[in-house]
């Protein structure tokens, strides 16, 4: 327990310090400020979003609870109405293509957006609610009181120490605050992927034509089999007059081979299924960022005395193949962290047990439910078989089904499947096991 004095608002610079004005931090700050708490939101970039990159599509449904009709004002590029998953080998590609016109209209589903726009917009909501946003300030460590509980932060500003009853660390994937507090063990490279992205300019009409959409409708393409010897995946997203083309690459595999990230992107861009989409586009910005990829298996301890972790700092990003959702998990976990802290402050108990409402909320909602349901998915999607054998198997089955081999008669599909499985070198029991694992993960 903390001594009562530590919670005396008069002796503290703030009720709550939120570190990092990404989606997690801003949503935490919105909830706290609206509850009348004195919140300081600290961001190391010159403005919120300036350090942040992603694919990207945001799924802002959770914002219904914080910003009604958010779609009327959020800085969106396009509304995703078409989602494709592409499985490719060097010279073949099989695509599952889905369209939903309704997603182009309110209340929408996913939207492409630039993080420097989106994060700045969301942080402004916290400021409007009364939070104090301090940018260009890096938090360098945690302060502790005599009882050993977190009691504030140190920063790189002169006389920059700030005290508060609770610190919410929303400092992203390299959360040194979580590490300092011992909530992670060592960071293990096997749990992370590197995302690299080219933002490429094309005229809006060209994007509309090449991707088969109109107006502000947009496209999201996820790709398996485009990362050479490295386990990972690729993505293409349409913005209004740019497209985002990138890869996520498993760190240990990337480090153990010879091709650099930008060379792997260049190879994907030359693929016959991709080249016509990206040809002639001009590079506007290159960017790179890590993703906590391992899901529930890498989950750190989510709270300490006087401290909570949310968003990527808590490894809550869902990276499971066809799903790459992190912003929504960050917004939700930030929001629930804010609610739990309001509760804890009311009860005058900010110890781990006083803050237990956070874990309870995560367990009761999609945040941890989705992670538990998809707990095998990241490993399966990034497994060697899915990455390096199945694309060849699936695309060659398709090739033989669609090939007309007259005068030879059409072979039966069952036979093609059996033959290609053997040719590619997949054991029947592995295929069955992966099928079951897939159903268990995604089913």
């Amino acid at each position, binding site marked *: 327990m903390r001594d009562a004095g530590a919670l005396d608002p008069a002796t503290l610079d703030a009720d709550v310090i939120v570190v990092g004005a990404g989606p997690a931090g801003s949503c935490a700050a919105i909830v706290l400020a609206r509850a009348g708490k004195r919140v300081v939101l600290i961001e190391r970039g010159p403005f919120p979003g300036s350090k942040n990159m992603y694919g990207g599509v945001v799924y802002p449904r959770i914002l219904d609870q914080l910003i009604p009709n958010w779609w009327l004002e959020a800085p969106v*590029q396009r509304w995703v109405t078409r989602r494709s998953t592409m499985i490719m080998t060097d010279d073949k590609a099989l695509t599952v293509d889905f369209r939903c016109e309704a997603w182009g209209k309110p209340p929408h589903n996913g939207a492409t957006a630039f993080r420097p726009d989106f994060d700045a917009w969301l942080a402004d909501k916290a400021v409007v609610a009364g939070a104090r946003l301090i940018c260009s300030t890096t938090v360098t460590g945690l302060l502790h009181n005599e009882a050993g509980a977190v009691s504030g932060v140190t920063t790189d500003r002169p006389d920059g120490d700030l005290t508060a009853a609770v610190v919410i660390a929303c400092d992203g994937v390299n959360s040194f605050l979580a590490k300092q507090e011992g909530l992670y063990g060592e960071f293990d490279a096997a749990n992370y992927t590197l995302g690299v992205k080219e933002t490429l300019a094309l005229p809006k009409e060209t994007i509309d034509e090449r991707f088969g959409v109109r107006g502000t409708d947009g496209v999201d393409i996820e790709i398996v089999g485009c990362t050479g010897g490295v386990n990972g995946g690729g993505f293409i997203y349409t913005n209004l007059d740019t497209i985002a083309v990138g890869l996520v690459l498993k*760190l240990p595999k990337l480090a153990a081979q010879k091709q650099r990230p930008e060379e792997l992107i260049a190879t994907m861009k030359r693929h016959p299924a991709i080249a016509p989409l990206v040809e002639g586009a001009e590079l506007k910005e290159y960017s790179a960022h890590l993703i906590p990829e391992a899901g529930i298996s890498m989950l750190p301890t989510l709270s300490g005395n006087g401290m909570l972790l949310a968003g990527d700092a808590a490894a809550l990003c869902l990276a499971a193949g066809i799903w790459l959702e992190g912003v929504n998990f960050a917004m939700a976990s930030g929001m629930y962290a804010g609610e739990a802290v309001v509760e804890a402050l009311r009860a005058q108990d900010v110890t781990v047990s006083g803050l237990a409402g956070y874990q309870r909320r995560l367990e009761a909602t999609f945040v941890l439910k989705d992670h538990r349901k998809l707990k095998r998915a990241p490993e399966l999607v990034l497994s060697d078989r899915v990455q390096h054998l199945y694309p060849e198997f699936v695309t060659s089955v398709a090739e033989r089904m669609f090939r007309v081999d007259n005068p030879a008669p059409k072979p039966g599909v069952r036979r093609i499947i059996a033959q290609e499985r053997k040719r590619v070198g997949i054991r029947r029991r592995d295929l069955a096991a992966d099928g079951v694992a897939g159903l268990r993960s995604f089913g």
Partner: protein
Amino acid sequence: MGREVWPDIAFQDRIDSATFRVHHQAHIVVDSAICGDCSTRECIVACPANLFVPTSDGGILFNYEQCFECGTCYMVCNREGAISWDYPEGGFGVVYKRT
């Protein structure tokens, strides 16, 4: 349209497309003496900014200025103490563009 090859983006143009507010103090420091004993050299292929350059005497030349602050280097490096990694001073370093 087949595998028609158009010139890929030159690496320097790629890096110059991003904005970096360079602080006079390095946020990442590499101890080239430790790198001298490293045969695996994970950093060289993995750093998206290509900031780790092998030198003729077997060490590593590192320049912090155009760094994405991603964390890849310290994650993949297996030598204790080779990389001291920190964020740059607040307000400095990479700044991604607004529209």
